[in-house]
């Protein structure tokens, strides 16, 4: 929000130089985003619009930072005469002050236009400029109608059917039923707290004005802004919960300036107030302050803070009763007062102090732990980790408000995104091996959903097939994690089993091979601990078997059959050669297995080796019609 240094200086002539106030604001109140000439762009915190979104509020913050009390006098309002104003539903408008004034001419002054310019507001005409100036000064949005154009009485009401409306800047907008408006006998004059209308616009010819200072319900304003999709300076302020006392301040200042600058004469003033005046009292204990903040302060220093903030204090035995200024609507609890004290004294004066706690058992989420382990293993296999978006154009759980058409759904698998990543990287690399561990969102029947971690792996090689590399990565990973795993082919997909349960699948798509694994299932089984097995002292014996089989025989099936012989001497089976091609007869391929045998009781004899090998040969011949070479 933009603030004018010129106006701050007018409110408080003792204010420090422009560049010196920036640090005071940052350390005690608000962040300053930018400073340009006479303009300071200050981020007013959302809970402080009521007391600090006007220049008076900022001047007060600055005085407090310099340990001074800001002197600023407000006059009181005087009711006068009669105006026909009615608030139909005071739930949405807790105060409405209307004042009718007559005036001859109203040329805007250079001073006001300068301040408006610093505050980022265009000069329109004398009256409108004063309204905006008062908003900058106090934080209360103001509005002026040409009272001669108002037909009959003023009503603040919710419209009960949709309507059209032409704004001050000549834009026609549709307003839905239920919108809070200011209306006369002819119809809508303004959208309450958001935008004024063309019909009762103040022009150079205006002789009589109705000045409005009102308090509208923040939720109502918030909903209207959403419904008509129109944000204004006024609506922004109203949606931050302004109090009805602020409306009074706005009116007081407006009347004062209009009288002084344009010799305006008050015809009538009506003040409708519906909320109760409450005195907010909160108990403050120095002992609790010290325990909560971890900082010791002298009683007099704390009391000085309350004095600066204009909070009255009553001492009650061990605690203080603090009477909160009516403009500090944000202060509701004792912790709010702790914050006031610590920020005024200086939050950086809190000294670091090691917490005193008993050492408890600390936990590490198992999924996150395994995620670390698996990423280390996979990068060890030279795969690179990538992060992709949680959205895609795939089917899946649907967003109510997608950011774009290609991100309408939540990803239900990782590999869709990973495949894209591999393709994109083929522009720069011949070989791309990547993985991601992240959440996917699964939709089940009846629109139920759940989320689960997946591991996605995609490997691509522009020159040669990559599927066996992928399977090697999977096997290496599962072995390292000490998992019972197996693969089974189903059509063109390889189903991955861990502990005889399906946990994922792998397939090849052109030159990219892809695996998608339910990572949460992996977490359930990957908690086993390896135990030591004695190193076998007796020699390892290897023997190769080459067999010719028909092309439609699967190597995987032969493997599992050999494994099923289940002899304890067989420690490993590998395929060391594979050939299908012209050198051998048509319809036949050659496969060479290497069988590794060992006994942990004695040296295995060549006779024993022969018996095992013959068993395997027999099996290959019988079950696969193989011809052993």
């Amino acid at each position, binding site marked *: 929000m933009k603030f004018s240094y010129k106006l701050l200086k007018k409110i408080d002539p003792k204010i420090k130089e422009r560049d010196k106030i920036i640090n005071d604001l940052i350390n005690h109140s608000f962040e300053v985003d930018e400073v340009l000439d006479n303009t300071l762009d200050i981020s007013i915190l959302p809970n402080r619009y009521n007391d600090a979104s006007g220049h008076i509020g900022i001047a007060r913050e600055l005085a407090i930072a310099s340990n001074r009390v800001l002197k600023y006098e407000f006059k009181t309002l005087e009711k006068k005469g009669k105006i026909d104003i009615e608030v139909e539903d005071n739930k949405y408008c807790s105060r409405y002050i209307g004042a009718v004034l007559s005036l001859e001419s109203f040329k805007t002054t250079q001073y006001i236009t300068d301040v408006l310019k610093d505050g980022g507001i265009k000069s329109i005409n004398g009256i409108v400029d004063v309204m905006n100036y008062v908003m900058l000064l106090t934080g209360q949005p103001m509005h002026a109608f040409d009272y001669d154009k108002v037909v009959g009485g003023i009503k603040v009401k919710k419209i009960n059917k949709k309507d059209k409306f032409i704004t001050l800047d000549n834009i026609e907008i549709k307003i839905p039923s239920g919108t809070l408006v200011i209306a006369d006998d002819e119809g809508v004059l303004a959208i309450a707290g958001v935008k004024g209308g063309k019909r009762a616009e103040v022009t150079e010819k205006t002789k009589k004005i109705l000045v409005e200072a009102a308090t509208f319900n923040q939720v109502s304003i918030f909903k209207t802004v959403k419904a008509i999709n129109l944000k204004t300076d006024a609506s922004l302020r109203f949606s931050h919960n302004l109090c009805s006392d602020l409306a009074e301040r706005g009116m007081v200042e407006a009347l004062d300036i209009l009288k002084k600058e344009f010799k305006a004469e008050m015809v009538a003033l009506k003040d409708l107030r519906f909320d109760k005046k409450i005195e907010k009292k909160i108990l403050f204990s120095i002992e609790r302050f010290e325990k909560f903040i971890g900082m010791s302060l002298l009683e007099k220093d704390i009391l000085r803070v309350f004095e600066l903030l204009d909070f009255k204090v009553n001492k009650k035995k061990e605690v203080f009763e603090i009477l909160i200024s009516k403009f500090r609507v944000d202060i509701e609890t004792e912790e709010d007062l702790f914050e006031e004290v610590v920020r005024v004294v200086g939050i950086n004066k809190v000294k670091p102090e090691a*917490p005193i706690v008993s050492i408890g058992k600390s936990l590490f989420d198992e999924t996150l732990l395994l995620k670390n382990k698996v990423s280390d293993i996979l990068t060890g296999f030279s795969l690179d980790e990538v992060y992709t978006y949680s959205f895609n154009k795939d089917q899946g759980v649907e967003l*109510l408000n997608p950011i774009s058409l290609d991100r309408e759904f939540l990803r239900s698998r990782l590999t869709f995104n990973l495949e894209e990543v591999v393709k994109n990287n083929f522009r720069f690399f011949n070989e791309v091996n990547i993985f991601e561990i992240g959440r996917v969102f699964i939709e089940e029947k009846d629109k139920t959903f759940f989320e689960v971690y997946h591991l996605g792996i995609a490997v691509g090689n522009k020159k040669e097939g990559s599927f066996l590399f992928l399977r090697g990565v999977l096997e290496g990973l599962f072995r390292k994690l000490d998992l019972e795993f197996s693969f089974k082919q189903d059509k063109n997909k390889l189903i991955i089993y861990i502990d005889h349960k399906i946990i994922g699948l792998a397939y090849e798509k052109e030159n990219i091979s892809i695996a998608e694994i339910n990572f949460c299932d992996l977490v359930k089984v990957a908690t086993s601990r390896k135990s030591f097995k004695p190193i076998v002292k007796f020699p390892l014996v290897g023997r190769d078997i080459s067999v010719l089989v028909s092309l439609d025989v699967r190597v995987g099936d032969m493997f599992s059959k050999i494994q099923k012989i289940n002899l304890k001497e067989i420690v490993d089976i590998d395929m060391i050669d594979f050939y299908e091609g012209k050198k051998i007869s048509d319809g036949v391929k050659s496969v060479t297995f290497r069988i590794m045998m060992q006994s942990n009781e004695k040296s295995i004899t060549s006779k024993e080796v022969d018996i095992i090998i013959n068993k395997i040969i027999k099996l290959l011949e019988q079950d696969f019609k193989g011809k052993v070479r």
Partner: protein
Amino acid sequence: MKDLNKIEQEVIKSLDKSLKEGDVLEIKNYYLGRKSGVITYLLKSIKDLSDGDKKKFAPQIQSLKEKTEKMIENKLKELSMSDISFKDLTLPNKKIRHGSLHPLTIVERKIVDIFTAMNFSVVDGPEIESEWYNFDALNIPEFHPAREMWDTFWIKKDYKKKDSKKRENFLMRTHTSPVQVRFMEKHKPPFQIIAPGRVFRYEATDASHEVNFHQIEGLMIGESISMANFKYIVENFLKKFFGDDITFRMRPSYFPFTEPSVEIDIKLPNSDKWLEVMGAGMVHRNVLKSAGLNHEEWQGFAFGLGVERFAMLYYGIPDIRLFYAGDLRFNRQF
């Protein structure tokens, strides 16, 4: 006999001069040769000495022999190592590549490690969150301007979470703070946790904004965990992460779920610019209440930081979108 020292000096001198293996072998033969070596001869003559001399000289001669053997052996080793002619060790090596972890993983782990070393537990929470946990439980009521601080992706209204009986509105969590409430509901203080995870914001992407990014949430609750304790933990953390030579400051801020609320800025050495790195504060009594804790019994702090922001500062990465572009020319740099 008397000149054992002199012999030793001779050996040293002649070994120093020799440049080839052959020279050394010649020296070896001269002194230690089985038949006529100088030292061998001395060893052989021990038996002819008187008992007194034997006691005196035998150990000295033995020691000279051992020293000489050792010196010759070392010299031979030295020569063989400097003999570069037989193998070129400077040929280009085989390329062995270790894959790269994503920079966000590296930075997240670095942060998590610092906190686990301070006995923090690491916990996880869902990415699709209910409106209650993401907003209401954190003291952010509906139609409150504070909600506007978080632009939200909503899930279509007819969806229902599996195994949940309640009809609720679901959204992509806008921060990791819901984990605070979820954890407090199930655990009795004292405890200290961090919760890393992905969060979502409905906003246009640019160099510093993304539709999804990562946060780490921290929470420490006990009987008397104070703002001063927070300062101790966060200062330790930031110095371990960015180095001891950073300056750091707190400044007043506002979050609905903390009171007081602060923002943490740091200044890197050789820079005069303050950089905003995290938001924090003392957990608001309404948040403790949402989780079923009594604010008169328990108090503590919470903080949240952006992993992308830390990674960008740490590595000097200028654009947040690089993290999600999947360009391996980027990912492989880390």
